[in-house]
């Protein structure tokens, strides 16, 4: 037990050390094209359990049910590790879309910025731990709307 803990700790320290060295010596490949800036990645929203709590954290408001959001996802996922999810909406002036998996440890799976000229459509593949509601949130004219669909997951997507 003690040994295991110590090994875990050692590993953590070593891992951090290696990462530090890699950064320090410029081993991380420097690309001609600038990497995206992840400083504004919504860390807190990605660490929040529960759908409503996550929407509040992410957008600072509640989302209203809308039938103008269409979701295309399987009734029974063949494997929770790879569940295709498509969302499209006829709501106007869409600036953002988010995908939430209600029963995952943290609900938020992905958020998307939809700049002007980009269509309010996204397709992504997500992991789901168990049978769950999947919620699509759409920001239209500055307000949040949502739609929900249930997916049965018989083989969970959290390893094993």
């Amino acid at each position, binding site marked *: 037990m003690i040994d295991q803990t110590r090994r875990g700790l050692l590993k953590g320290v070593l891992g951090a050390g290696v990462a530090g060295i890699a*950064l320090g010596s410029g081993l*991380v490949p420097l690309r001609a094209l600038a990497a995206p800036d992840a400083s504004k*990645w919504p860390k807190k929203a990605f660490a929040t359990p529960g759908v409503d709590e996550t929407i509040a954290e992410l957008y600072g408001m509640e989302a209203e049910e809308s039938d103008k959001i269409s979701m295309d996802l399987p009734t029974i996922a063949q494997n929770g590790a790879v569940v295709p999810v498509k969302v499209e909406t006829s709501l106007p002036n869409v600036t953002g879309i988010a995908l939430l998996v209600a029963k*995952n440890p943290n609900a938020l799976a992905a958020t998307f910025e939809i700049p002007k000229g980009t269509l309010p459509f996204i397709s*992504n593949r997500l992991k789901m731990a168990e049978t769950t509601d999947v919620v699509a949130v759409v920001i239209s004219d500055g307000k949040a709307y949502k739609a929900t669909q249930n997916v049965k997951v018989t083989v969970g997507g959290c390893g094993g």
Partner: protein
Amino acid sequence: MASSIRARAVESGGVVSIKALVRHPMDSGFVKDSAGNIIPPHFIQKLTISHDGKNVFVADWGPAVSKDPFLECRFEGGKKGDKLTISWIDNKGESDSTTATIA
């Protein structure tokens, strides 16, 4: 080394459809390896697609996005032959980028 990004962009009726696949483990931090040790989280946090110097799509991803993530999106205003730049960065600061030509 081969690029971690494979992308296809097709223009039809003024709309460009982009499909991309990124090679990445997307480890959630909730899974143990065969020896029972937690595999630390390692996932792409941000992926951007830009055209003509401006972003046409920005994704913020968490660890619930599947291994080797797939993405499809659509935008207006691109022409055949235009270049798109697709870039990602993960939670360890690793990144990659590629360009695709609209067909």
